[in-house]
């Protein structure tokens, strides 16, 4: 897999980060290099190996479906950049 050719613009769009043209170029090159090092992983023999997500696998960690105390509306809004009527204010989403 050719690591050098990453569509940085597209990936940045997926990640919702605006990049300047200089950043696009610089990051593109750096990412290409990093992914080049990571290519060595292609040499690993992973046939028949299961992926690991947790060192000590836990399964179905649930609790009873009961309402419990949680953070107050006031506390949750305390750090909001813009708020009103107990809600977060954001730029218009739907026309």
């Amino acid at each position, binding site marked *: 897999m050719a690591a050098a050719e990453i569509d940085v613009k597209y990936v940045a769009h997926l990640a919702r*980060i605006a990049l300047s043209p200089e950043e696009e170029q610089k990051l593109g090159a750096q990412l290409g290099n990093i992914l080049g090092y990571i290519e060595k*992983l292609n040499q690993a023999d992973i046939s028949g190996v299961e992926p690991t997500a947790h060192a*000590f696998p836990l399964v179905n960690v649930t609790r009873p479906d009961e309402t419990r105390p949680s953070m107050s509306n006031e506390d949750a809004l305390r750090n909001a950049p813009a708020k009103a009527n107990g809600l977060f204010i954001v*730029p218009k989403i739907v026309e």
Partner: protein
Amino acid sequence: MLNQLTISELTGKLASREVCSREVVQACLDQIKRVDKQIHAFLSHDDVDALAQADAADKLLANSAKAAGKPLLGVPIAVKDVLAVKGQPLNCGSKILGKFVSPYDATAIEKLKAAGAIIFGRLNMDEFAMGSSCENSALGVTRNPYDLERVPGGSSGGSAAAVAAFEAAVALGSDTGGSIREPGAFCNLIGFKPTYGRVSRYGLIAFASSLDQIGPLTRTVEDAALVYDAMAGHDPMDSTSISSAVEPTANGLLESLSGLKIGIVRQFDTRELGEDIDEVYDRAYHDLQALGAELHDVSLPTADYGLATYYLIAPAECSSNLARFDGVRYGLRVDDKDVQAMYEQTRAAGFGPEVKRRILIGTYALSSGYYDAYYVRAQKARTLVARDFEKAFEDCDLIACPAASSPAFTFNAKSDPYSMYMMDYYTIPMSLAGLPALSVPCGWVTPPGGTRPLPMGLQLCAPIFGEKLLLGAAHAYERATGHASKHKPQVSEVSA
């Protein structure tokens, strides 16, 4: 001086009322005033609040019934800026959280408060825990108290520097690929990362959810054991936390290593690190033998894939975890014409270059068409690493190896991102396998071009849930060798 005492020394003097908590906290605050301008370990500290906590502790200390069951009563613990402490700023070394003040306590913090500790200060760190030098902080660099021209390590750089400079008895850090162990090694401390899941991650701002763990940076192994014992345990608020009972460690510290088998990893050949460093580790391994341990050659064939594996998994997880920083509910918001633009501009302005790099790598590795080739492949390689350790532990009880490939480096020495990533080479495999590991001081080296001796760390790693043996053995090594006391920090010589 009170700020130079260990936890076990402090708790003794506090219990006997020889000193009061207010004096102890004041001593820390005085030291901060004296040295923090030179090292910038602290991003902020609320002195009024710290002293109020101390006064409350003193009231309890005066009444032995009330003091019972609070093993850390009156002890000042400083906190890496990645942990939520109610009423305190929370920035994760970043601009994107703006003036965020935490509305809640992390579970680990809650437990330490219940144990009577004084929780104070916000310590500098690489932004969102991404880095190995603290140079990625958006809020200034931290300097190594042992050589002010060098980094303290990272990402828990502020935590390590604060303890090394005697500004606090203990500091909390977090470790994802080595972020407690490497700064511990660079700053002549014990840096301890528990088994994954042993300490709740609730309130630890997530970087890589399958790797992150909270742990202490301390001046002695016993102190690390005391803090761990108070913090560890199942938490219903963290569904990845382990439910089995925690074995206390502070009462299991060993004086000898006889009967123990210690694995030396064939693939970690310290001759590659240069003569001086090789000598330090050679002597360390001999010292383990002198304490009665049997050294065994063990093999971790896939350890070399560790870096590549980690630098796919961690960025992938971070790209998901950092999606929440979007200007909507907290922190920095860059207003723009619509929500999409607001997200893009807020994140552009709020994240530093390393964070952007990792989010982009992670996003790429998880994107359609690449997910199997990158992320899933890395998760499978991770299984191989974990299996290697399992196999190695059939032949030994503990593994010993370097904590880092060199002592602290100078600022800007690792400007190429991948050269910085290499600093995690020895610590990453243990993180991938979720194993408990720590760094303990093992000697001093004056690097070429350096003017001062710098500390080095020996990494010890135990099987899963092996904290008691790990800390027990580290204590024996620490007591027998006493490397930490051989040199004083530079910051103690330079007057404020």
